[in-house]
C-alpha cells in the first residue's frame, strides 16, 4: 500500500519536473532569440531608422522605411487575397466537407502545407513574373497568399469543429437555414480561434524570404506601387546579413528586431480587438 503510494508520488514528481524543464527549454529558446535581437539590434534603432531609406554602402545612417512600408503592403495584400479563400475553405471543410470533394481539398491543403516556400515562389515567378515581364510586389503577395491558404483552411476547420454540435442543432431547430447557422452561429462562435489562426498565418508569412526573392525582388528606393518591385524587411535582412559590411550586419539585426516587434504588435492588437464584450474570450 505505502510502497504503491510512494512509487506513484515519485513518478508523478518526476514527470511534473520533466515537463516543467521541457517548457522552460522551449521558452528559453524564445527568450534567447529576443534577447539576442535586442542586444545586437537595439543600439542601431533610432528615429531615422524608421523614417529614412537605405543609403549606399559605406555611407553611414539611413534606415529601412521603404522595407517597413513594403512589408505592410506585401503582407497586407497577401492577407487580403489569402484570408477570404483560406477561411472560406476551412468553413467549407468543417461544415460540408465530409464527402469525397472534402477529402480531396483536405489532402491538397495538407500537401500544400508541406510544400517548401521557395517552390511556391517559383510558381509565382512562372505564372506572374514571367508573363508580366517584371518583378512586382503583387507577385510576392500572391506567393505569400498561396502559403497562407492551406494553413488558414486547416486551422479554421479545426476551430469550427470545436463548436459543439448542440449549438448548431439549436440554431437549426430555431428555424435557421443551414448557411445562416454556419455563418451567424458556428463561425461567430469560432471567431476567436479563426482570428488567432489568421494572425499566426500572417505572422508566419511576414517573415518569409525565399518566395519573395524572385517575386517582390526588393527595392532600394521607397515604392508603393504593387506592380513594381518592392522591398520588405525580410529581404532587407537577407541582403544586409549576407553583405560584407559591419554596418550592414548591425542594420540587419535592427531590421530583424523591427520585424519581430511588428509581429508582436499585430498579435497584441488582435488579442485586444478580440477581448470579448462579455469577457468570455480567451
Amino acid at each position, binding site marked *: 500500500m505505502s510502497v504503491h503510494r510512494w512509487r506513484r508520488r515519485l513518478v508523478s514528481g518526476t514527470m511534473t519536473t520533466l515537463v516543467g524543464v521541457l517548457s522552460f527549454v522551449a521558452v528559453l529558446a524564445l527568450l534567447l532569440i529576443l534577447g539576442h535581437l535586442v542586444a545586437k539590434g537595439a543600439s542601431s534603432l533610432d528615429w531615422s531608422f524608421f523614417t529614412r531609406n537605405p543609403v549606399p554602402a559605406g555611407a553611414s545612417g539611413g534606415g529601412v522605411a521603404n522595407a517597413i512600408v513594403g512589408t505592410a503592403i506585401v503582407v497586407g495584400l497577401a492577407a487580403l487575397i489569402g484570408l477570404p479563400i483560406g477561411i472560406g475553405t476551412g468553413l467549407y471543410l468543417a461544415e460540408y466537407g465530409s464527402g469525397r470533394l472534402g477529402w480531396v481539398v483536405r489532402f491538397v491543403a495538407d500537401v500544400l502545407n508541406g510544400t517548401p516556400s521557395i517552390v511556391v515562389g517559383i510558381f509565382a515567378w512562372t505564372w506572374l513574373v514571367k508573363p508580366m515581364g517584371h518583378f512586382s510586389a503583387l507577385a510576392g503577395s500572391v506567393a505569400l497568399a498561396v502559403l497562407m491558404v492551406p494553413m488558414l483552411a486547416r486551422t479554421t476547420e479545426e476551430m469550427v469543429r470545436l463548436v*459543439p454540435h448542440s*449549438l448548431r442543432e*439549436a440554431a*437549426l*431547430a*430555431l*428555424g435557421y437555414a443551414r448557411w445562416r447557422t454556419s455563418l451567424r452561429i458556428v463561425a461567430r*462562435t469560432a471567431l476567436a480561434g479563426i482570428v488567432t489562426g489568421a494572425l499566426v498565418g500572417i505572422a508566419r508569412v511576414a517573415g518569409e524570404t525565399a518566395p519573395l526573392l524572385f517575386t517582390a525582388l526588393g527595392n532600394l528606393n521607397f515604392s508603393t506601387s504593387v506592380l513594381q518591385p518592392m522591398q520588405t524587411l525580410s529581404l532587407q535582412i537577407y541582403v544586409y546579413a549576407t553583405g560584407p559590411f559591419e554596418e550592414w550586419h548591425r542594420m540587419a539585426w535592427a531590421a530583424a528586431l523591427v520585424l519581430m516587434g511588428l509581429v508582436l504588435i499585430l498579435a497584441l492588437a488582435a488579442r485586444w480587438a478580440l477581448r470579448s464584450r462579455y*469577457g*468570455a474570450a480567451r
Partner: protein
Amino acid sequence: MAPPADARLQLETARLTALYGRRAVVKDVSILFPAHTVTALIGPSGCGKTTFLRCLNRMHELSEGGWITGKVLLHGEDIYDPGIDAVQLRRRVGMVFQRPTPFPTMSIYDNVAAGLRVNGSRPRAEIDAAVEGALRRAALWDEVKDRLRQSALALSGGQQQRLCVARGLAREPEVLLLDEPTASLDPTGTQRIEELLHELKTRYTIVIVTHNLQQAARVSDYTGFFYLGELVELGRTEELFTKPTKHQTEAYITGRFG
C-alpha cells in the same frame, strides 16, 4: 387509450417509422397530440423516444442517414410533404434540448431575439416587446430584466434552460418539443421548468421526453411508453401510472427494468 374525441387535434403521427440507414429506431408509431395538452414520452434509454421527438420538427433527417416513412400531420397537413420547407416548419415547432444551448457570442437579449431576426428586419419596438413577452412566459424576465445586454453564459444552468425556452417561444410556435429539458438541472431549476409547463400549455401543445417518471406524472396529461422503438402504451397519465394495461409498461414504471 386514445385522447377524448372532443379535444381539438393539433399534431398527429400516422404509422411513423424513423430509420438510420436501414435500421429502424422508431417503428410504426401513431399518436394524436391534442391541442393545449402536455404529452410525456417515457421509456428506457435507446427506446427511440428522442428520435421520435426529432421527427416532429424534421430534425431527424439532419442526422447522418436519417429518414422516415409514414406521416406527421400538423393541422392535418403532412409536414414531410415536398411542398413544405423544413426551415419554415421549425419556426412553427419549437424545440428545447437536454442541455442548455445559449448562443455564447450573444447577449441574453440577442439570444431571445435570435429567432425573430431570421425573417429580415423588424421594428425595434416589436422585437423588444416579443423578447420581453417570451422572457415573461419563460418566467425569467424578473431575473434578467436589468442585465439583458450581458452574456447569456453568465446565467445559471437553470436560467440558461429557461432562456432557451424563451428563445423557442419568442417566435410564437404552435408546438413546443422538449427533450429531457431538466436532465442537467438541479431540483430548483427542475421545479421552475415544471411549473412553467403548466403555464405554457394554455397556449402551446407540448411534447416532453423525460427519463424521470415522477416528472412525467407531475406535468403531463397523456403519457406514452416507448420500448425498443415501439409505442407500447399511450393513455391518460393517471391511468397509465395506476392501471397500465401492458405488462411491459407495468414492469417499467414499477422499476423492474429500464
